């Protein structure tokens, strides 16, 4: 539609937003893409994610190279305003020196380390493989005890001091790697965030979160603590969010099983106790399979088990994949990428957690 492409670049955001909702399908897609790249509204990038969901457009297929802004990352200060003010005020742009705000620098360094991990190890150019700018917002909401990926950017609260330590949510490189990997998953397998496919989504985030940390520390599998979010919770709750090698032991509220015998079958029904069908609970099972495989293989986990899991996440799984699908795919991929010894080791790991007979 040349008619539309000509007007896009100068169309005001309001018009683009209107077209994105009310236009014909071609106009809608073009308008969403223009919104995504408009330099004038780069700071309102979140609108793209919201529109794409409202229009039911799969962001993984919609967001082509148009989302590359030409810079690697940027960090915004939400100034405790919450959702209506996302992303917030630009606090440190790509290439700028550190600022006085520790959380801003942690988000900057953690995003950069995650970018470098995916680029160096898997030759993946950002989350979408096409240079998507990594946008982070810190100081989200008031005493907010969470960090999440909103479909287009990273969001970190400050922590209340009752569950998360104040400043704890940006402190841990594996938590940053975890959140950004939700973006990788969104652009690849698109695992549905419910029950087993949701637990796999969670597990891949923990797997690559810990690998970002191990790679950054140049740490072999045998040297890893396999803890996600160590030192982020208040000490009275426990040492970490999750233990991949020993699920269920990280904190006093940790309900993670380490094998199918302890699988917690919960409904996905909006009840906060049920965690979208146990996505942060049953992820302990595939988490442990990965940690077992990586430690049995030895050496650097990102060169062996990590490569297998990466290939499976990005090329082998469908959105509704179950544990058994991930197990079969990793075993098969281990044989293709490596040899029968590696394949047997991966098979054995899934056996130990009860997913493979």
């Amino acid at each position: 539609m040349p008619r539309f492409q000509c007007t896009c670049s100068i169309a005001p955001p309001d018009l683009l937003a209107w077209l994105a909702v009310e236009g014909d399908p071609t106009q809608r897609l073009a308008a969403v893409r223009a919104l995504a790249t408009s330099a004038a509204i780069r700071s309102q990038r979140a609108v793209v994610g919201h529109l794409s969901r409202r229009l039911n457009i799969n962001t993984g297929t919609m967001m082509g190279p148009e989302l590359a802004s030409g810079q690697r990352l940027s960090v915004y200060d939400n100034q405790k305003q919450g959702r209506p003010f996302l992303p917030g005020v630009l606090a440190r742009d790509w290439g700028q020196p550190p600022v006085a705000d520790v959380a801003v620098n942690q988000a900057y360094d953690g995003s950069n380390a995650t970018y470098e991990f995916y680029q160096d190890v898997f030759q993946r150019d950002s989350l979408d493989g096409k240079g998507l700018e990594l946008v982070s917002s810190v100081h989200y909401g008031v005493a907010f005890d969470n960090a999440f990926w909103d479909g287009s950017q990273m969001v970190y609260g400050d922590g209340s001091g009752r569950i998360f330590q104040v400043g704890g949510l940006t402190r841990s490189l594996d938590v940053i790697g975890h959140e950004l990997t939700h973006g990788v998953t969104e652009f690849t397998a698109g695992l549905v965030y419910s029950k087993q496919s949701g637990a796999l989504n969670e597990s891949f985030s923990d797997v690559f979160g810990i690998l970002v940390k191990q790679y950054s520390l140049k740490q072999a599998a045998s040297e890893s603590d396999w803890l996600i979010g160590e030192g982020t919770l208040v000490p009275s709750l426990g040492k970490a969010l999750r233990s991949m090698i020993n699920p269920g032991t990280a904190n006093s509220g940790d309900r993670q099983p380490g094998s199918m015998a302890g699988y917690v079958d919960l409904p996905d029904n909006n009840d906060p106790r049920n965690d979208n069908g146990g996505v942060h609970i049953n992820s302990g099972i595939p988490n442990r399979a990965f940690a077992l495989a990586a430690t049995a293989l030895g050496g650097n986990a990102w060169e062996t088990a990590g490569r297998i899991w990466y290939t499976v996440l990005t090329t082998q799984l469908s959105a509704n994949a179950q544990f058994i699908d991930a197990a079969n795919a990793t075993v098969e991929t281990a044989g293709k990428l490596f040899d029968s010894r590696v394949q047997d080791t991966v098979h054995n790991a899934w056996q130990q957690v009860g997913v493979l007979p």
Partner: protein
Amino acid sequence: MKVVIVRGGGVAGLTARTELDSGALPKSAAKTLAGELARANLDDVPEPPGTVSWPDAQLYEISVEGRERSITVHFTDESMPENVRLLMAWVDSRPERIESIE
């Protein structure tokens, strides 16, 4: 009247409960709570669609047990109305609240 906030999911996957009994509040604060509840208008909080588009978004439940009627609503970080956020912030600021990890 008792207000119970349950927060679950999130990157931590922990379930945290916050309870505030208006009987434990000074009279003026109990009046403020009633005002916060009226402004939050829980009757108009729609149940989330059930499909999550923000991984690690927290899930919330607020229950209000009154003498005449009770109400329970669910929402997420994505769907949370601003006035409900303000209600929770007010409850979180009260020293009379009781917190626990479930």
